[in-house]
């Protein structure tokens, strides 16, 4: 009961922000990703008790997958279901990579997620350094990501700076992030 009420709160809190984010509201997107990251952390901690050090890596990987696939969200359906379906897919994929399919069973189904959320504070550092992985991307992709995502230039500014067209910049950013996903998965 408590658990389903919490899911409901997550959905009602997230949905309006998420819908604004989908239309291109960047502040709303940032806020939505923060809410989602907290929910993912709780969801994954509870299911990855044997791999606690990998939780934050998988949170970040799932956020990347959600970002790359946000066009597959159907606004008629709950955004929480969409988020958790992707998280579950990423979790299964991780177990398969580790050859631990048996560990999928939710042994702790009677625990609420909330009991495992509090620890750790707000300073969530992943083990894997995505910054370093970014450096191994091809030059054009790395540059497009650095300019638009790290230095915070607009696509138009990045286009002026590099001489590449705006759509080329967008494509390089997207390809770079997809490539990053492949690197993250090892």
């Amino acid at each position, binding site marked *: 009961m408590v658990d389903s009420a919490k899911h409901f709160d997550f959905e009602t809190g997230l949905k309006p922000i998420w819908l604004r984010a989908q239309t291109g509201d*960047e502040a709303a997107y940032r806020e939505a990703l923060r809410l989602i990251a907290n929910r993912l952390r709780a969801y994954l901690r509870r299911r990855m008790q044997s791999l606690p050090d990998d939780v934050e890596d998988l949170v970040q990987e799932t956020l990347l997958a959600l970002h790359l696939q946000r066009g597959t969200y159907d606004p008629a359906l709950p955004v929480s279901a969409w988020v958790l379906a*992707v998280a579950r897919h990423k979790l299964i994929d991780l177990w398969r990579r580790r050859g631990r399919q048996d560990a999928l069973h939710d042994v702790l189904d009677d625990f609420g997620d909330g009991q495992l959320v509090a620890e750790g504070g707000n300073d969530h*550092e992943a083990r894997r350094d*995505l910054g370093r992985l970014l450096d191994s991307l091809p030059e054009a992709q790395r540059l497009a990501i650095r300019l638009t995502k790290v230095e915070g230039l607009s696509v138009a500014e990045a286009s002026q700076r590099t001489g590449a067209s705006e759509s080329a910049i967008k494509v390089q950013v997207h390809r770079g992030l997809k490539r990053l996903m492949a690197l993250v998965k090892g």
Partner: protein
Amino acid sequence: MKTETWIDMLAQGAGPAPHGQVMRRLVPVALLGLLFSAAVSLAVLGPVPAAMFQTPVPWMKLAYAGALAGAAGWLSAGLARPVARLRTPTHAVLAVFAVMTLLGGLAWWLTPTDDRLVDLMGHSWSTCPVSVLLLSLPSLAGGLWALRGLAPTRPRAAGLVVGLLAGALGAMGYALACVETSPAFVALWYTLGMVLSGALGAWLGPRVLRW
């Protein structure tokens, strides 16, 4: 990297979510697959006599395979998403199979007993399903590629359904070259060819649909 930093990076300049991501991948692949299957079927097997298009025979095959392509394409679009409403498109796929089975059964029942076996087996029962399967392979490869770039969370089901879609596109091409006339033949052997493609898709799905 801290998750906060990562979130800032993802959100920075993200713009609006892309529109029609699923359809923009699936539709071109399906059209190309259909084009391929029609071209190869006409070039390699040769078209049916033009007069045959005055009869309902090729239209029945095209309508069956076309309806299945539509329904399976609709369901594929759902399975390409992590969550989607799947009930109605699933019913549509099953309804297409049910209608053709009924039509084939009715034709079988109306055929005099002595002619039934000849009618059902035609002269090409042994090559029809394999031809449909072969003509569907490029669509299957394209469909799996399209799904791989999307977000299917049920890889076996997604592979099965995109295999049925590919099988239907292969059958549409094959219908242009197939001179069999019996609905019972179509209900059995066309269906078998399309189901083979679906089975291959279901086998490949968990292997290739990782993202």
